[in-house]
């Protein structure tokens, strides 16, 4: 197998290409000094792998998933970038910069056949695809982690007073969360033998049909255990939406603020917050 002009150029310009690429990438992402070393090593190994593939004999179909060291290096690189808040396009740009550098070299330096150019295209198309896939995978993992931690954080049932529970709802309520909320609420009602449960909706941004349905289920279940439900903190917009959707919360006390709701709950259990004797004002 004789070396073609294409392979020769790649071979001769190898170190020049690498330096140019590293400089370009550094300018692209204005990396912080401390990470540059790790990034350099990653770029080097990635560069070797890519050139290794470019120097091969062109084949009709190309899949890069089997190139383990390349895939690994690319994933690490994308992971590094994603952690520092780069966008998907920045990551793809890193790869595309190398393509521009290589093709610039090829065009000026030697005669290159059409087949070789299309090979170059093919390799970098696959690389781009791989980069985007890696980026999406990393983002998806982040989102899953975040929603899991949100789920754990966001459904506390607080014991406000003897036989009064407070359930502050914050954020979007979907089916999974609604079930978890209902479960933990029922458990708490049973444990503390609660007579009144305050459901605070101040932190719920959107009240729509599905949210309302989940709420109704939670309220109905709580009522079956013999507790009165007080809803607080519904916004004017929320009240309008609920009513226009034809949703009626029968036998549920509704109060404008958590403050009023607490007072109502205290009245229901026959308690009162009163000023201390002799300490008025």
């Amino acid at each position, binding site marked *: 197998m004789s070396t073609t002009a294409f392979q020769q150029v790649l071979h001769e310009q190898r170190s020049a290409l690498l330096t140019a690429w590293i400089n370009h990438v550094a300018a692209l992402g204005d990396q912080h000094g401390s990470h540059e070393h790790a990034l350099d090593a990653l770029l080097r190994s990635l560069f070797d792998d890519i050139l290794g593939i470019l120097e091969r004999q062109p084949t009709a179909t190309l899949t890069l998933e089997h190139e383990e060291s390349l895939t690994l290096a690319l994933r690490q690189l994308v992971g590094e970038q994603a952690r520092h808040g780069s966008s998907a396009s920045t990551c793809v740009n890193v790869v595309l910069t190398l393509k521009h550098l290589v093709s610039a070299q090829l065009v000026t330096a030697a005669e290159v056949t059409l087949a070789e150019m299309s090979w170059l295209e093919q390799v970098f198309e696959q690389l781009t695809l791989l980069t985007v896939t890696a980026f999406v995978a990393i983002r998806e993992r982040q989102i899953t982690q975040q929603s899991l931690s949100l789920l754990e954080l966001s459904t506390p049932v607080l014991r406000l007073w003897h036989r009064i529970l407070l359930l502050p709802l914050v954020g979007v309520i979907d089916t999974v969360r609604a079930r978890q909320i209902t479960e933990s609420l029922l458990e708490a009602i049973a444990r503390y033998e609660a007579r009144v449960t305050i459901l605070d909706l101040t932190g719920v941004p959107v009240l729509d049909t599905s949210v309302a349905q989940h709420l109704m289920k939670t309220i109905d279940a709580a009522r079956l255990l013999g507790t009165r439900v007080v*809803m607080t903190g519904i*916004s*004017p917009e*929320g009240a309008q939406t609920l009513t226009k959707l034809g949703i009626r919360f029968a036998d549920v006390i*509704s109060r404008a603020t958590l*403050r009023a709701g607490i007072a109502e709950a205290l*009245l229901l259990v026959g308690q009162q917050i*009163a000023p201390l004797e002799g300490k008025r004002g």
Partner: protein
Amino acid sequence: MKIPILRLERILLVSIQVDLTDNDAMQFQSDLVEQVAEIEALGVAIDITALDVVDSYMARVINDTASMVRLLGAESVICGVQPFVALTLVEMGRDLLGADCAFNLGQGLEILRTRIATRGDTRLSEDENV
């Protein structure tokens, strides 16, 4: 036409005196709801003494407004339904005016005051205002 909302301490009074267009009705609804939320009203009286005709749309608007007001934590009462209006509403469907009704504004306010007196948060605001 904008419907004036009168404030009597923490009770809001609205008197509907002309037939409302769809836009007016929506405007009235959101104005009232905003106002209830802003002053944390304890009660709302909607007076329709001057209305000789209430169609099903108007009845729904009034009814919806009363439910919204209740969701925002205020008591609501509808005052001054005319005999003829009551007759038509019943013939159109029983649930058209599901909210509590009073004969006139005076009785409506009385109902509101009694109900507010039994609430927990009235006592609270008295305590805080000391």
